[in-house]
Structure formats: structure tokens, C-alpha cells
């Protein structure tokens, strides 16, 4: 029973971090129709910025906020000064299909190299702001700590804020309209380019938050977020790539599947589990389990 409770709590925590990453990928996919592989680089770069701020200011919370802000700024800058020129420049030929994706891969490499120049390849640590010792239940320590709880709370608040933004504000309406049909959105006076940049900024902020919540339980190094990118992608595919709710739900499915397999079958099966789920979803329902594609015509 204790094992079960622990597995559920761990699933929720890891699932919520995957959810931030999948949300970031979905936000960019919705606005730009590109899987932003550079997201791993952006997230790790903003986490390094957060790390620097923590070293200078001594406060995790200042670092967290700075990382989120930096993530948003970097995301917006990448869209405005990198992706937009690429879309403007490459308009003909079969290369159109792959150029944006290839560009994000190149960007990922550049960002990770720059991190290597600046901070080296050594492993850094970010101390968690609250205890990482597991809670005690019935006299035994479980693998769920106050820090895990904090992660859960932070992600829940973020998701609530995002939902409010998307469902209750005009800006959210513009974001949804541009994702749904850029042409019609443009006709009704929405500045689609700006809205797209906003999507990238939101994604960058989510990535920064993901990094700051993920790294205290592990280490900070240039490739720290690669694995999270993969899990975020799988979660987004489970959710159908297009829906924010799907991204979160997909992340939870993945979190539960991975943690239950590792705690009940074998701890070696993290990647096989994730990969098999991905293949199964692609074989059986490539549009995603939580996709609402039926009502749409794209």
C-alpha cells in the first residue's frame, strides 16, 4: 500500500515536470507548426541563468523568477530574430518541409555549445529551497519530499494561470484563434506574428520553470534537459500535439506508466516504457488519445 502511494505521488511529480515540457512544445507547435527541438537548449540555458542568479543573490526564488523571465525573453527573441527570418527566406522547394526543424536542431547545438563555453561541462547543482528528505508515513520514509510537493503546487498554479489566460482573456482568444486558423485570425485583425512570438515566449517560460524544478533533483549540465525534451515530446504526442489539456494529460499518463513500471517491474525500464508507449500511440491512434481533431479540418 505504501509502495502504491509512493508510486502515485512520484508519478504526479514527474508527470507534472513532463507536463511543463510538453506544454512548451505544444505552445510552439500550435503557433508555428514546428516541433521546437531547441526547447531543450532554451530550458537548460535559462536554468543556467537561474543558477547564476541563485549564486549571486543566494535566493532560489529570485533565481526561479529570473529563469522564467529569461525563458520568456529568449523564446520571444528566437521566434522574432531566428525563426521568422527563416520562414521568410525559405519559401520554395522541398526544403520548406524540413528547414524549420533542422534550424531548431542547429540552434539546440549552438545553445549547448555556448553553455559549454561559458560554464564548462562540469556538473553543477542547484540546492532545493525546501527539504528533499521524504515525508514519513507510518514510520517509514517515502520517496516524496516537501520539494516534490512544491513542484506539484508550482506546476498546478502555472497550469491554472495558463488555462485562465487561454480561456478567459482576449489575448487567450487571439492565441487560440491564431493557432486554429491563422488566416481567419489575421482577417479579424489579430496580429498573428506578434501572437506567435507570444506563444514562443510562454513556451520559453514554461521551459525555464521546468528546468528550475527538475534540476534540484539531479544535476545541471549542457545536456541536462535532453531526456526531458524526449519525454515532453512523447507526452505531447500522447495528447495529440495540438491540445494543451492533452499535453498535460499525456504527461500524466507517461509519468504514471514510467513510475509504475519502474517501481513494480524493473527500474531499468524507464526508456523502454516511454518508447513502447510512443510507438503504441503512433500505431493505434496517431492523432493522440486526447486530441479533439474530429471537429477540425486541418
Amino acid at each position, binding site marked *: 500500500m505504501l509502495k502504491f502511494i509512493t508510486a502515485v505521488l512520484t508519478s504526479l511529480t514527474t508527470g507534472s515536470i513532463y507536463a511543463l515540457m510538453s506544454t512548451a512544445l505544444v505552445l510552439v507547435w500550435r503557433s508555428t507548426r514546428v516541433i521546437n527541438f531547441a526547447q531543450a537548449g532554451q530550458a537548460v540555458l535559462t536554468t543556467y541563468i537561474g543558477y547564476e542568479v541563485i549564486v549571486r543573490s543566494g535566493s532560489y526564488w529570485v533565481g526561479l523568477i529570473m529563469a522564467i523571465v529569461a525563458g520568456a525573453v529568449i523564446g520571444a527573441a528566437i521566434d522574432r530574430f531566428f525563426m521568422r527570418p527563416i520562414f521568410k527566406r525559405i519559401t520554395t522547394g522541398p526544403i520548406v518541409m524540413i528547414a524549420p*526543424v533542422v534550424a531548431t536542431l542547429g540552434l539546440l547545438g549552438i545553445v549547448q555549445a555556448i553553455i*559549454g563555453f561559458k*560554464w564548462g*561541462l562540469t556538473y553543477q547543482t542547484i540546492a532545493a529551497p525546501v527539504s528533499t528528505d521524504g515525508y514519513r508515513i507510518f514510520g517509514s520514509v517515502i520517496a516524496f519530499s516537501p520539494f516534490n510537493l512544491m513542484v506539484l503546487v508550482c506546476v498546478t498554479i502555472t497550469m491554472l494561470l495558463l488555462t485562465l489566460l487561454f480561456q478567459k482573456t482576449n489575448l487567450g482568444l487571439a492565441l487560440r484563434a491564431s493557432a486554429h486558423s491563422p488566416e481567419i485570425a489575421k482577417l479579424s485583425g489579430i496580429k498573428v506574428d506578434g501572437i506567435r512570438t507570444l506563444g514562443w515566449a510562454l513556451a520559453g517560460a514554461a521551459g525555464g520553470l521546468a528546468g528550475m524544478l527538475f534540476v534540484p533533483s539531479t544535476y545541471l549540465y549542457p545536456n541536462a534537459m535532453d*531526456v526531458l525534451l524526449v519525454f515532453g515530446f512523447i507526452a505531447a504526442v500522447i495528447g495529440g*500535439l495540438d491540445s494543451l489539456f492533452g499535453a498535460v494529460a499525456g504527461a500524466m499518463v507517461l509519468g504514471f506508466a514510467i513510475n509504475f513500471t519502474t517501481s513494480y517491474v524493473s527500474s531499468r525500464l524507464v526508456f523502454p516504457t*516511454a*518508447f513502447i508507449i510512443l510507438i503504441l500511440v503512433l500505431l493505434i491512434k496517431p492523432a493522440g488519445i486526447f486530441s479533439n481533431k474530429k471537429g477540425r479540418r486541418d
Partner: protein
Amino acid sequence: MHNFSATKKRLLLFILFGWLLLLVGDRVGELRQYQGSFVAMYTLAIASIILLTGYSGQLSLGHSALMAVGAYAGALSTNNAHLHPVIALIIATFVAGLFGLILGFGVARLSGPYLAGTTLALAVSLPSLANQFPILGGEQGVAFDVGAPPARFGEDFSQYKWFFWISSLAALIMIWLIANLLSSKYGRSFRAMRDNQVAAQLTGINTGRLKVTAFTISAGMAGLAGGLLVMLISGVSPSAFPLSLSFSLLTGAVVTGVYSLKGVMLGGLVLVAIPEIADSVVNRIGGSEGFTATLPGFLVSALLIAAVLFAPNGPGQLLKKKH
């Protein structure tokens, strides 16, 4: 009749080129022979990307993993089953091809982001899998010993020349086969599918099956390249196949011009040259450990972006831009 002579011409061209390589291989030092073997290996791997991305329009980030599959298959065949290295390389090709076929049924029909992401997941997760099965040798990996060159080549036939011969010959034969394939009915079907899938389907092309075919052949080529790579570094381990290898191959393909197999050797040369250039830069201006270790990756990525931006159809495009 015309087609026949074109095929003949290509065969002659490849034999001539092989002979040229043979002459060059005799006249350069061991370091150059060793580098030449890497050029051949990379060229083959890049050709596999060009076949997949340039001709059938699918984007794979998992070719490092497919190379690893071939590499492990080859290493296990020599090291554990004590087969002849040449047979091991053939096994590497077929095992990786079979792996590609199985994976292809799952994902190759999917387009764009799905295939790219799934192959990325494969590339990230496969090396860590290799650590978990004792037969694959963990971090140490499995040795691949190609053996000394045959005695009939004489006393002064060095190991590096032997590497160079095997790699070049394997790459030449494989690329010749692929060049023939691409000028056949298959090549035209690939291009039709890449340029307009619906139109291709209308002409009776089974695009789903064709995509799986392309993925399988590409995986087999990558497997052979992986086998060659572990021959050159005399053993396979998970760290020999990082995700960055996939990115390098993609860069090599884009730099050569992803829509033509013609200049594919250029990509191999670039990938071998980049670490050299990075080394000489570091020697000249110095730099921290992090700078030294990440400069090659930086150059590869910068080149990838530059190539996509300025010459997405290969360097030939820059030359004839004036029109």
C-alpha cells in the same frame, strides 16, 4: 538502351574513383589513411540520410542509434560468434536494416514531426539501453578486431591502409548500389512522393510501403557505417553513438545538398575536417576545457544553420545563383 549505358558509365566511374582512391591511399601517411577511412564511413552514413531525407522526404534524428544497432551486431558477430569481419559487416547491414524495417512499420509512414521526434527518442534512449544488457558489455562495450591485413598484401601493408581499403570499398559498393537504385523506378517514385504525396498516390505508388522501404534501406546503410565506425575505433560502446552524431550526419547531408547524392563525399570530408579545424583554433588561441570540448559541436551546428539558410540545395546553388 540509353539506361543501360548510363548504368555502365556509372560503374566505370565508380571503378575509376576506387582506383584513384587506391593510388591516393598508397601515397599518403598513416594518419591520412586513417582519416580517409573516417571520410568513407561518414560519407556512407550521410548517403543514408540523403536517401531518406532528400529522396523520400522523411527526417530522421535517430541514425546514430541505427548505426549503433549495426555496430553492436557487427561487434558481437566477430567477438562472440567469431565470424570473419567482412561477414560481420554484412551482418551489421542486415541487422540494422531489419531493425529499420520493424521500426519503419511503426513510424516511417508518419510524416514530419512524428518521425523526427520518435527517432530522436530512439537516439536518446538506445545508448542507455546498451548499458543494461550484460551481453552488450556496458560502458566498456564490445571489441571489434578486424585483424591484421592478409599476408599476401606484403609486409609493409599497414593496418591503417587495411582500414582505408575496407571502409572505402564498403562505402563505394554501397553508394554505387544506392545510386543505381535512385536512377531506377524506385528513385523516381521516391522523388514523386517527396514532392507531392497525393499526386504520387494517384499514379499508383504505394507511398506507405515506399516510405518503409526507404527507411529500411537507409537503416541498413547506417548499420554498415556503424560497423565501419567500430572497426576504426576497434570496439563499440554506448558513448560512441551520442545524439550529436545524428546531428553531425544531418549537417553533413545538408552541407552536401540533401537533394543530391552527387557531392556526398564533401559531407564526409567536412565532418572529418571540423574536429581538425577546432583543434587548430584551440591551439592558436587557447581556451578552457569547456571551449575545447564544445567547439566542434558549435562549428557543426553553425554550419547546419548556415547551410539551411544560404544553400539549402547544396553548394552548387551558391555558384549558379546569379541567374
